């Protein structure tokens, strides 16, 4: 992976809220096309770090570069070069499938002609031709999540951040979602993903585990399992987070 281009570089990333240290000197690099899993117990500091990497929050200290831009001074450039999707916030339920695509295309600064082309391709690919004029609130969660992901990468960002994208999704759709993640990563986009499903941690190229604001492990799933004498990532996680 070392010959690949660096897309995220964090050295000493620290964020304090008063006396509370949410992120304590995090050091990590993420490469182009990599599927990077970001794990940790609730409250370990994952969301704080993701907000900083997305240009939504300024760190207290550290040298951090995302998609070639500085997180202190170039947050607007960062935002236009990344995609973001979470379980909680993704699409507007009171707009139709088609309207959501148009809206986000506009937000990402795509031209109308380009939006129309991409919209047609996207709707066909996801098999939503009949539902295109239906409200988002009426389509099943699994489809919604796949659509939200497709929209998050519509402007061809260098990195896409997925914050618990498969929470509550049925086991078939969850796997179809990972098929999409692989596809995107093969096309060269970096995928930065959080999940509470430990089997999904196995699908990542590398996994970073956080605990109480610090990185406690960062390696490939194979190496982590070897080092912690564990059968699977669930055992690794429980051994580390205990």
């Amino acid at each position, binding site marked *: 992976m070392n010959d690949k281009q660096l897309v995220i570089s964090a050295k000493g990333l620290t964020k304090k809220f008063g006396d509370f240290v949410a992120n304590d000197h995090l050091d990590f690099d993420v490469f182009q096309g990599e599927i990077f899993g970001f794990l940790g117990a*609730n409250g370990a500091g994952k969301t704080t770090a993701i907000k900083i990497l997305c240009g939504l929050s300024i760190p207290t200290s550290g040298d951090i570069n995302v998609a070639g831009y500085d997180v202190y001074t170039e947050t607007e450039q960062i935002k236009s070069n990344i995609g973001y999707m979470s379980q909680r916030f993704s699409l507007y339920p009171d707009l139709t499938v088609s309207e959501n695509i148009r809206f986000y295309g506009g937000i990402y600064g795509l031209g109308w002609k380009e939006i129309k082309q991409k919209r047609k391709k996207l709707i066909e690919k996801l098999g939503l031709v009949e539902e295109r004029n239906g409200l988002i609130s009426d389509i099943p969660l*699994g489809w919604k999540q796949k659509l939200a992901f497709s929209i998050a990468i519509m402007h061809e960002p260098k990195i896409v951040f997925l914050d618990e994208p498969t929470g509550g*999704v*049925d086991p078939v759709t969850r*796997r179809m979602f990972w098929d999409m993640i692989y596809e995107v990563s093969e096309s060269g986009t970096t995928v930065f993903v959080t999940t509470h499903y430990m089997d999904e941690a196995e699908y990542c190229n590398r996994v970073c585990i956080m605990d109480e604001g610090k990185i406690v492990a960062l390696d490939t799933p194979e190496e982590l399992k070897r080092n912690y004498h564990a059968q699977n990532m669930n055992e690794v*996680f429980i051994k580390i987070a205990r």
Partner: protein
Amino acid sequence: MINIFQITKKYESTTALDSVSFQVDDGELFGVIGPDGAGKTTLFRIITSLLLPDSGKVMVNGLDVIKDYREIRKITGYMPGRFSLYQDLTVEENLQFYATVFGTSVKKNYDLIKDIYSHIEPFKNRLAGKLSGGMKQKLALSCALIHRPQLLILDEPTTGVDAVSRKEFWDMLKKIQREGITVLVSTPYMDEALLCERVVFMEKAKILAMDSPQGLIKAYSRDLVSVSADDMHRLVVDLRKYPDVNSALLFGHEVHYTSRSGRINKDELINYLQKERHNNIKFRKIKPGIEDRFLELIS
């Protein structure tokens, strides 16, 4: 404890529950397993008398959820999926409030909640809205138990919770069950089904199966093999192109493969994968898990 007979509930054009029936025995730890949108929350709202079914009948401890709702509420503790305590009251005030509403006192039933509440007691003067996720959950559970209910109903208590906290939460549920309280819990995590005595699988408003976790796994009918190779993603794609494929799904660091005929010819399959230039192919016959059974049922 609970007897559900053919309940149906529709919201405009959507059917949330479609003729659902099952029984939960006294003292059982019973799981309702299914993805979002399966109908779990609607079902629980009907059992707790918060929502009326369009048709069908639900009895809780011999009481009718429509006629006897007042009695049912006295013997039921309910922890909804969304945190619903008073954020602007302190931890202690919330607990006292719930005790008073149910006509009891914190002191009277303290022994029941002691193990859970002791974790948050050091923060008893903190506003509930300022608690961390894990602490909110412990407070909500304490409040649902403070009147010593006969039946505890929890709607997806572990959704969005990390693997370690999930394990702790299930340990707490086991303890509550040992106190003689019937526990009905829903979850989208298939692995948690194994922690229940009996479960129902729900999907698209219907019950797909009801049994003990072991019974569900036993009903699995196909040959199941685990395959792995160096390039896992390409392996899945190639397996799906194999003529006899029924399903090829990633399970952590391996692919679970089943065939249409139900039987699997090892040599032919490995030959095919070698021809597709896969390296380091590993192939073994495995016993199905609970998620394999769910996937078999919905495919």
